[in-house]
């Protein structure tokens, strides 16, 4: 079910501004890959090219190839809506649908894809909430608005919503940056469990987090403000944090800039 991502020669633009240039990398299935780098280096932009969310920003445009197993996401005749069903996403700030209950939030993706029996929906909602380690906290308030949960719970609700449609890949854009340390810990544990089933890509500002949760780490950087962001290197997390092959990576990790 989890799929391999193979990116080659990818450029992304905002209007005429080249935001990231010539990125190639492979993301292995059933692993966690972390993107790190200074602000504005294009790691979030790159993440959003992996489920064709980049092009919904006005002026957003992408060149290059993103292979999901053997299918190019940017090939002719590919339906971006179908892509986003296969490649789920969790955002920086928890964004449950404010007018929907906890239950409806989790079921939202399924309801888009057709009619299901109530019992089937119930099963999936429970399974997804359990998968997001949230079931025990919300099972008595499934019909309360999702926006009434705490920040950390909301974020796990968003994860439950994303995994309910059984995507192949789960993208996470700084999922813990708006959360307190305890909620962060809960999400990190969850990521460890989810990688058994999904290919996970996570953008993070927090290098300890990258070191804790990821199997591989990619370091992005930009030459100067206004220049496009580039992939500096990608390697096993252990290597990146102990013995990176590029000087800039070491400088960044040891806190000399960024």
């Amino acid at each position: 079910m989890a799929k391999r991502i193979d990116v080659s020669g990818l450029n992304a633009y905002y209007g005429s501004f080249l935001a990231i240039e010539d990125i190639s990398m492979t993301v292995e299935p059933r692993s966690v890959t972390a993107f790190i780098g200074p602000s504005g280096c294009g790691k979030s932009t790159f993440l959003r090219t992996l489920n064709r969310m980049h092009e919904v920003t006005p002026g957003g445009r992408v060149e290059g190839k993103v292979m999901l197993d053997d299918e190019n996401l940017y090939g002719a005749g590919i339906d971006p809506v179908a892509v986003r069903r296969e490649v789920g996403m969790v955002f920086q700030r928890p964004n449950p649908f404010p007018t929907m209950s906890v239950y409806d939030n989790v079921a939202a993706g399924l309801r888009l894809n057709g009619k299901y029996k109530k019992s089937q929906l119930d099963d999936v909602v429970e399974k997804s909430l359990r998968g997001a380690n949230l079931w025990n906290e919300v099972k008595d308030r499934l019909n309360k608005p999702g926006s009434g949960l705490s920040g950390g719970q909301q974020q796990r609700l968003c994860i439950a919503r994303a995994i309910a449609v059984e995507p192949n890949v789960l993208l996470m854009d700084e999922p813990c940056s708006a959360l307190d340390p305890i909620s962060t810990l809960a999400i990190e544990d969850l990521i460890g469990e989810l990688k058994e089933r999904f290919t996970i890509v996570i953008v993070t500002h927090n290098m300890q987090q990258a070191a804790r949760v990821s199997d591989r780490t990619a370091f992005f950087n930009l030459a100067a403000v206004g220049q496009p962001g580039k992939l500096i290197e990608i390697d096993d997390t252990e290597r990146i944090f102990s013995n990176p092959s590029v000087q800039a990576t070491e400088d960044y990790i040891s806190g000399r800039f960024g």
Partner: protein
Amino acid sequence: MDITTQKPAAPPAPGPAAPEDKRAARGATRPGDRIFLGLSRGSGIFVLVLMAAIAAFLTYRASLAISKDEANFFTSFEWNPTGVPPEFGIAVLAFGTIVSSIIAMVIAVPISVGIALFITHYAPRRLGGTVAYVIDLLAAVPSIVYGLWGAIVLVPHMDGLYGWLDDYLGWTGVFAWEGGPARSLLTVGILLALMILPIITNVSREVFRQVPRMHEEAALALGATRWEVIRMSVLPFGRSGVISASMLGLGRALGETMAVAMVLSPSFDISASLLDAGGGTFAQNIASKFNEATVMGQDALIASGMVLFVITLLVNGAARLIIARRKEYSGANA
């Protein structure tokens, strides 16, 4: 509550050595401040008095008329305030006002929401911007111009549609048409719809534009089509805004005078058909009957104006209530 009464217990003046302290402590009572506060509070009070006066005068004159009315003011189909005995009632006017406003709302609200979505979510950006700007300006076109256009351009164009409605839906009675110029409540409703469309569109557009990006992205990331994004995040978020915009439009439709007076060919009866000329609205009736009215006639018109006033008050109040109640669900706090 006001500044002047907050005068702190003036510290015993330590003599001429410290004039600065004294001035600072009594800042609120210096003449400049007092005059300025007086002026601005006076204006506020003036507004209050004005409203009270409006209510009082209208009630007084209306009561003069109603007390002499020999017919039932609410149910009579007559309008003969100068007759002996005077007989008049607002049933026809209330019917016409409400029916034409309902027609206007039924047409204008969905179309306005459509245009607002068109501007914010469908149109290419430049086209959307231009359309938004033009619609904004159209909101400023005075009703007299709508009336002129409605009476001279729209009315003749309605004939074909009327014939059609009569052919296919005439059996319902509501859409039966005897022929004759299309100066009926339906045409009035359509014209009112056009007039309130810019207002509803503008407000709805603003609300849709304020939908937090992250709610839309949440839907997109689940693999929602554009319509599903709108249904899941844009419409729920914008609902209260659209309702208040519609109420604003309804308020204008209820009170519209000139456009109705120019298009409608009035008569004092209620017809089952919306297509046949006839009927009337509160505002239109005041404008067209006013010229020949005596003092008693004017009082009767004032009484009908009073009813219109109360109806618009109720509509505006309802709008505010709906907004207040909806707020907790709107997610505006996100």
